[in-house]
């Protein structure tokens, strides 16, 4: 064929597109013989190459019914798969033989004929058919994979083995790795890619020869299916020079047609005499009904009628393939291309699958109308598929069978990793400073807060969930709470994580109803402010649920969180049925202190008014305090000015970009499941015991709890996440050390008892520190003393303020400031003991 532009050739046959359309009748040109036929023809007698150009017919005539298996009925079945391709009658014009020459139909046999003729060439090229044939034979018979050559030199070649296998299982095709072809004979590979129709036809002949030598009686057609081409084209770059070439490209199936039965052979019956005709084979997409009965004795006119159940049909399917998102340039829409699948390839993929296709790119003319001679100067293009490979299932591996919600999957979860990317990640993960780099790349335009970012990083990677046979579940998700002053970019951090996390939901605590896919628009009756109340938790199953303004969350929604954060399910009662939905989500919440600013004198719980039970479910609680620091402010100001007046890329030195980060994270989450090494386990135990002991230091009288079993779970999760970042299958000692450090940093901020300066888990667990409890006890007892001293039972009452004065005078063992609310609390305790009665502002002894 004339090198690149195949269409050219087509024309030269008379076959120009036009006529196929207009009158399939003009046999003179062999025109649109289905390539099938061509192939057939070729296969049977290579001779035909000699003369005629059987150039691939891209101009398939508009006849939509494609492959017409021509003369050789016998073979027609399997074969058309590729050839027939939609085009149906391809231009395949001038192969004289096609129409006129008698086509030998028996499968074997005539190949030999080739030998006697003078060398035959593939039309329009200098490729000799014999050469190709022998090259293929050599390849099939002698190709061995590199590694096996030493010992089993005498074993059969790789493809001989597979041929035997095919014969055994009565298969219909042999997959041939194009890399093998290239390794063995680069020249053959090139010819195959450039002239796939011709070369594959020869390939099939060779296969059939071999098959018949092995098993004379084997009747099926064995076809070759090439896959794994050396170069893969991008859909966007397909251009006219690719027509009739073998190409391979990747994409996502977006639509597939129903299976179309395509007639191959028709049988007619005479209505008069009942004579059944021989099977009539599709020619150029048409089957001509015999005008008269073929039986000599009958010869009735117009009596033939088709017998459907004696016709033979083949499967055909048209599938549309679309570019994957990563190949689409900015500001473009995805391209699509049609695939034509035949026989066994039908239904090999379903919409949504990512596949890699090897096939022949073809074009055919668009017929203007069935009755029109004119042909538009436009071509339809499609790929005649040879082989379909589904993309690797990497991403599915870690999923449990309950996961049916594929539709909810977000883009980034779907991101495929090709080898190269994977290698890049491996490389990246081996970097000694990967941990630092990752944390630096996280929200690069928010400064400081390094430890917070590291914590968030751990959350992104997550620990391992553990389901014991006993039914006990240990969550792998890490929950984080950020508490802090307004204006400390908490929300931005949240937003950022939301963007990064595989399936994140961002919601504001102001009206998260926790469940449900709908939302409610609420309007503040006074200010007219509108808020959106949406359900979030269920939607973020296996993701991160970011809750802004956590403190403003309604109590009912918050109570739901208890279940979510420990059991990882959400229960919904609707119409008398209680449904438990999975909500395996990490919670990242941020809360503002209830006063406008964080009051360091009060505990976290007092500051944010969250129930301690909920608080204790957070693995890490960070206090982000805005210390008025001019230096930081200046940096911020500088950054913003730069953002507006320069090309503000400067801020991000060697940070990993967000898409890479996302894929890195999701890859790690799916594929890396680190286990604790012995050393790490030991370190964990030791560290934990040490933390517990730390409580004793403050004085044996106070029982300060510095660590609880919840912490050790947190620590395990954190260290697993840290190992994951390095793609390491083992949790090392230094991971544990870092986990301890992270925990300590977080706890130091939030769980430090400001009175004593030590960590006190009671602050989180009950909201009251041990020292505070002691203080209250002394308080109560001194009030009791005062009351005993100053008041008689049933006597006059005493104002609280007076009591306060007394207490202050009394001084003694209370060394800190006393507030009225302290007094109230103590009085309440006493009244519950029945010692006092509180009447408004006054107290009375009873």
């Amino acid at each position, binding site marked *: 064929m004339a090198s690149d532009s*195949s269409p050219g050739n087509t024309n030269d046959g008379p076959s120009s597109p*036009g006529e196929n359309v207009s009158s399939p009748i003009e046999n003179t040109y062999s025109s649109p013989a289905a390539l099938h036929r061509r192939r057939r023809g070729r296969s049977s007698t290579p001779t035909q190459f000699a003369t005629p150009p059987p150039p691939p017919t891209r101009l398939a005539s508009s006849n939509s019914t494609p492959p017409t298996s021509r003369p050789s009925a016998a073979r027609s079945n399997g074969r058309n798969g590729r050839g027939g391709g939609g085009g149906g009658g391809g231009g395949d014009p001038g192969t004289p033989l096609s129409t006129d020459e008698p086509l030998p139909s028996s499968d074997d046999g005539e190949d030999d004929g080739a030998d006697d003729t003078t060398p035959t060439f593939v039309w329009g090229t200098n490729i000799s058919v014999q050469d190709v044939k022998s090259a293929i034979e050599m390849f099939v018979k002698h190709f061995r994979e590199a590694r096996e050559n030493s010992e089993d030199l005498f074993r059969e070649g790789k493809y001989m083995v597979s041929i035997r296998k095919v014969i055994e299982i009565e298969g219909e095709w042999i997959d041939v790795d194009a890399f093998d072809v290239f390794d063995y004979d680069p020249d053959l590979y090139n010819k195959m890619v450039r002239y796939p129709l011709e070369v594959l036809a020869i390939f099939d002949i060779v296969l059939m020869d071999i098959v018949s030598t092995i098993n004379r009686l084997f009747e099926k057609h064995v076809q070759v299916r090439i896959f794994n081409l050396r170069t893969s084209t991008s859909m966007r770059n397909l251009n006219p020079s690719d027509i009739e070439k073998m190409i391979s490209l990747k994409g996502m199936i977006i639509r597939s047609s129903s299976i179309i039965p395509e007639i191959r052979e028709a049988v007619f019956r005479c209505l008069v005499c009942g004579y059944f005709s021989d099977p009539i084979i599709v020619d150029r997409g048409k089957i001509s009904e015999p005008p008269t009965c073929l039986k000599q004795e009958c010869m009735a006119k117009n009596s033939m009628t088709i017998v459907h159940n004696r016709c033979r049909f083949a499967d055909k399917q048209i599938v549309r393939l679309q570019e994957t998102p990563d190949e689409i340039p900015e500001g473009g829409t995805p391209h699509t291309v049609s695939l034509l699948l035949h026989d066994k390839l039908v239904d090999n993929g379903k919409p949504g699958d990512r596949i890699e296709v090897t096939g022949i790119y073809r074009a055919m003319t668009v017929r*203007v109308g069935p009755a*029109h001679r*004119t042909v538009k100067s436009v071509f339809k293009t499609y790929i005649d598929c040879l082989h379909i490979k589904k993309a690797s299932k990497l991403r599915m591996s870690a999923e449990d069978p309950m996961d049916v919600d594929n539709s909810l999957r977000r883009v980034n979860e779907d991101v495929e990793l090709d080898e190269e990317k994977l290698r890049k990640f491996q490389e990246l993960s081996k970097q000694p400073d990967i941990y630092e780099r990752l944390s630096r790349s996280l929200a690069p335009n928010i400064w400081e807060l390094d430890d917070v970012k590291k914590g968030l990083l751990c959350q992104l990677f997550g620990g391992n969930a553990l389901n014991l046979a006993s039914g006990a579940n240990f969550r792998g998700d890490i929950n984080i709470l950020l508490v802090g002053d307004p204006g400390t970019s908490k929300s931005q951090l949240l937003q950022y994580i939301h963007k990064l996390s595989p399936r994140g939901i961002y919601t504001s605590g102001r009206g998260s109803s926790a469940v449900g896919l709908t939302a409610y628009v609420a309007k503040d009756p006074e200010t007219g402010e509108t808020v959106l109340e949406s359900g979030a938790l269920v939607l973020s199953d296996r993701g991160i649920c970011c809750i802004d303004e956590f403190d403003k969350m309604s109590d009912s929604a918050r109570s739901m969180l208890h279940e979510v954060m420990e059991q990882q399910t959400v229960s919904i009662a609707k119409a008398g049925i209680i449904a438990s939905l999975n909500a395996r989500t990490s919670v990242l919440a941020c809360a503002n202190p209830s006063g406008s600013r964080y009051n360091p004198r009060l505990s976290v719980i007092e500051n944010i008014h969250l129930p301690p039970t909920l608080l204790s479910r957070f693995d890490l609680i960070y206090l982000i305090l805005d210390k008025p620091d001019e230096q930081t402010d200046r940096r911020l100001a500088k950054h913003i*000015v730069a953002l507006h007046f320069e090309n503000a890329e400067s801020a991000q030195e060697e940070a990993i970009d967000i898409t890479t980060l996302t894929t890195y994270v999701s890859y790690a989450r799916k594929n890396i499941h680190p286990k604790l090494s012995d050393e790490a386990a030991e370190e964990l135990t030791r560290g934990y015991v040490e933390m517990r002991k730390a409580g004793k230091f403050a004085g044996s009288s106070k029982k300060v709890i510095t660590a609880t079993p919840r912490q050790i779970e947190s620590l395990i999760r954190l260290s697993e996440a840290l190992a994951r970042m390095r793609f390491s299958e083992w949790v090392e000692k230094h991971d544990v050390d870092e986990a301890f450090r992270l925990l300590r940093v977080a706890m130091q901020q939030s769980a430090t008892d400001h009175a004593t300066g030590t960590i006190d888990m009671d602050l989180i667990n009950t909201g009251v520190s041990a020292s505070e409890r002691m203080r209250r006890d002394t308080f109560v007892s001194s009030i009791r003393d005062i009351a005993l001293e100053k008041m008689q039972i049933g006597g006059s009452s005493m104002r609280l303020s007076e009591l306060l004065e007394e207490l202050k005078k009394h001084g003694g063992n209370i060394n800190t400031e006393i507030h009225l609310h302290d007094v109230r609390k103590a009085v309440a305790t006493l009244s519950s003991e029945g010692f006092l009665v509180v009447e408004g502002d006054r107290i009375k002894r009873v």
Partner: protein
Amino acid sequence: MGGPAYDCLTNPLGAVRFSFVNALSSGYDPASSVGKDWGVVDLFRHYFSDESAISQVPVLDSSSIKWVQPKTLVRFRGMIQDMLGNEFYAGAYKDDTTWRTNKYSDVSQFPEGSSTEMKVWERRLLYCVPVPGQNQWTECSSQELKNRFLDLTGQNREKRVRVDEEMTDSIDSNALEAGLNGSPFKKMKVGEATSSASESQVPQSSGIPPATSTESLPCLVKMYDSPESDLKLNDVVEFLGVLTFDPIVMMDTDSLDENSDDLSEAESVQMPSGKVPRLHCLIHRKLETQHFLRGSSLLPEPKSPQIFKEIRESLMKYLTGLLGNDHIASQFLLLHLLSKVHGRVDNVAVGKLSLNLIHLNKESMSIFGTQLSDALKSLLPFTQSIPLTIEYLNTASLGPKKDYRINRLMPGVLQIADGTHLILDETELQPGTLNSVGVENANLLKNLLECQKVEYDFQYYKMEMATDVQMLIFSEGKSNIMPADLVLPFQPSQVNSLEVITPETAEAWRCYLATCKSLPHSIGQELQQVVENDLVAARQTDRSLGSQDLSRLLTMARMMSVSYGETTLSLEHWQMVLELERLRKERLK
């Protein structure tokens, strides 16, 4: 280039052919050229190098389609709504021994079968629609052109027919005649009015909603020789090219069998050229606001700040009047109107400035809101408004969505051109439940406000497209669904009757806005220090100021500065911004 052996306007294909012959003689080889341009583009570029020549070309729209002739040169101004991929066509063929070309035409003109060699070339298909929300004043009137054109064709009809026939000898002359009478398009218009008529013609087309209104005319543009990166989705472009139509539209569509439908781009099936004219683009250019202005030029460079100042003053007066003498609101409105995204870092769109006017209710909305949106319509090229109600959110399709059934991107309300002004009216919003569509829509709007990005739904994945939209929100209280950059309580003191503005003034204001928006901007070393110090000081006094607030101040400073036609920030303008911000804060209390 060649002499006037052809008329670029009425016989562009003749020009193409002429130059092709020329190119052949000077060694152009169609066999190896892959369809590369042989000088046609230069020829037309040269011919239409100035604005006055371009204005001679009729603009293709729903009214002119009735009289423009196929195979003549037309202009189409529109937004690229979808890209339909590439199309392969028989680009060149050999007629006996000479090469002929099909470039810039739809139907192959050679008598089939007689050609011995053919080359396949490719071209890109762009589906364009009139820019959504395009305002009336931007439309160029083609009235005079029409008259001239009708004169011309009236006189020469007979001759033209003959000429055309010669040129396109191979085409079915019946079809040609039908086309020359302009009838296919005319018929189609009639057919559209009675909607049932069109349906019978094109069964599948009912799946495609009309782009925006019934009056808008989409166009299928075929691009040649233009790099892919040149044009992006949602770009507003003017295409100049050959108008064609398929005589075959009238074909029976029902006989097309299923398989061929599936394989084809289905474009011919869904978009019969009777409904969607084809334009074979010769030259194109991206349109900016100034191209819509009558004078087609921007204000002189900042050399004359006085001019800027004067226009600014008159415009401010007008805006203040519109806003019931609320000076502060009008200041902010002006800044808002000048905003545009001029940089993106991560998810931050630098330069956006959305404005939320609060304390508006239904009643005041009907007065001020309507006035304002009318005024904006006359000032800006593209405006849209979205009523935020529960029903609307629950039913509207805001985000564009890919329909794989017909392989087309279905436009959503938010598929809009850069620079569009969008009014969101939240005053009508009542409490109620949003369904999943509503939630999606609310998220889309919020994302647009915060990041200036719209998510396009490709079903199997979503793609974010950067957009640049000025958003103005009217609401009763602060809108938390649509968090704007600036929240300002609106305090009108009186209702002014609408001032009548002369076309000249309006033109001047449009020109002013367009110029200011396009001005570059920078900051001096010294002032940078001042700004930094001020920002630090502001944060020291009010700890609740976040980076977004500071960033907003700088955006405002930029707008303030360009509104005076300045390209560098001055201390005076910076202080004006700080003062404005202070006044706003005061109101918020």
